[in-house]
């Protein structure tokens, strides 16, 4: 099949960017979108041009590295799919497709389609963990977790930190990411001791980098793991609860 790629090219963080159009002729419809870029880069290198910089790693939808705005949608038109799992057969033969990097103040462009998502690390450092002694593994079933709680926590823990929620959000908010990181800990017994300290730390750190949630719901549709905005409601409610709880009596830091 044939596709015309309109790719954002930008030499560096402060360099001016522009769209460059590349005609891809006779590519296999069974290729993934990243493989299409591999083909493009081979052609570019063959012509002695600079290949397109883009992030990728596992190419099986679990690492969260690939990040492209494809035809105005984060990770392209297919729902519940990261760019690496988007196959060309899902696109229309002969189409012209614009490919852009994520755009957000918290995700500065490094080069072409590659952005720096270190802000997500800052958020996890602020509260996306539990404080527990490391060492040998504890006995299985020492802490009983109901199946339902484990399932709900897993739905949130499915977050791969790709940043599609920020990219898709009209406000550039990272609420879905933060809510997922908050919820997968706070739905389990191990997450309770730091629950209210965590929610405040996470919210305040998130807002150093990203916008505010106005409940458009775009993030949920863009998320390759289809994480629900129900978790954002949990984050919002617990943030208010954390203001009211006597945290000293729950053994938590203020």
């Amino acid at each position, binding site marked *: 099949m044939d596709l015309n790629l309109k790719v954002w090219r930008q030499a560096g963080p402060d360099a001016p960017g522009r769209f460059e159009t590349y005609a891809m002729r006779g590519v296999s419809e069974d290729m993934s979108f990243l493989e299409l870029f591999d083909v493009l880069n081979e052609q570019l290198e063959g012509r002695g041009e600079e290949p397109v910089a883009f992030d990728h790693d596992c190419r099986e939808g679990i690492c969260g590295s690939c990040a492209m705005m494809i035809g105005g949608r984060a990770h392209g038109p297919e729902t519940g799919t990261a760019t690496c799992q988007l196959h060309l057969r899902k696109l229309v033969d002969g189409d012209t497709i614009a490919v852009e990097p994520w755009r957000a103040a918290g995700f500065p462009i490094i080069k072409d389609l590659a952005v720096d998502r270190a802000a997500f690390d800052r958020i996890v450092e602020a509260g996306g963990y539990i404080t527990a002694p490391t060492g040998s593994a504890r006995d299985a079933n020492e802490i009983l977790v109901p199946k339902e709680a484990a399932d709900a926590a897993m739905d949130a823990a499915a977050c791969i930190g790709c940043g599609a929620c920020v990219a898709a959000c009209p406000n*550039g908010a990272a609420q879905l990411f933060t809510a997922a990181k908050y919820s997968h800990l706070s739905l389990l017994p191990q997450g309770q001791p730091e629950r209210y300290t965590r929610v405040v730390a996470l919210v305040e750190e998130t807002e150093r980098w990203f916008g505010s*949630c106005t409940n*458009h719901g775009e993030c949920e*549709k863009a998320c390759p793991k289809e994480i629900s905005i129900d978790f954002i409601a949990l984050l919002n409610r617990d943030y208010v609860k954390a203001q009211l709880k006597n945290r000293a009596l729950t053994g938590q830091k203020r």
Partner: protein
Amino acid sequence: MTHTQEVSTADHRGGADDADRLARYTGPPIPVRRPRHPVLRFWSTAVGKKWVMALSGLALLGFVLAHMVGNLKLYLGESHFNEYAEWLRDLGEPALPRTVLLWGMRLGLIAAFGLHIVAAAQLTRINHKARPVQYQSHRDYVAANFASRTMRWTGVIVALFVLFHLADLTWGNANPDFVPGDPYDNVIASFQRVPVAIIYIVANLALAFHIFHGAWSMFQSLGWNNPRWNAVRRYFAATFAAVIAIGNISMPLLVVTGVVTK
């Protein structure tokens, strides 16, 4: 849980590939000094501001509904309508002196409007700063609808309309036929002017779109989320918006078309 020092992870790996370049891309940390007072600290976060927006919005929804129900007495005739206007002033008697409760409600309403607008303005600034460079190709929205994406504009239209509405029917500056203490005739005289009727109709359409998103969004901001009820939240917002739109638009429409007269 203390805040870690704000450095890129690349910095920890001294001499690693491109370490200093990566540190540069992350950019300097945005200094945020949070206020010490718990109320101010809550307000300093966007989640806190959205909570205030939701609660003030809920108060404003209550006002909009009560205001419409009261004004629909227009269809019961002059004496009913004017009696209702007087009753508003008498409300709270004999426990409170006349108009004291009305003024209490007015002050609450002004506070709700003020907080709603200030929070909206500050959140808008935050959001503009969060994406300084817009997408350069066409964005294909999936979930965001017309109502959710025009909240700022419908909000501004409604706020400007409220000022006009007060000048028209409370203070009388925008209504040459205004007679203090004669609400029924004032309303009819005002709505009989075609441009004024159009202003009322357009502003109430904007209000309906604002409510369609706001009355749903409110539940999320407050964290009122339960899969058993989540579908109802959408119906609630749509019904509320439709009721307000139909009720409020019917009045200028029926007056300007001559169905309701003095």
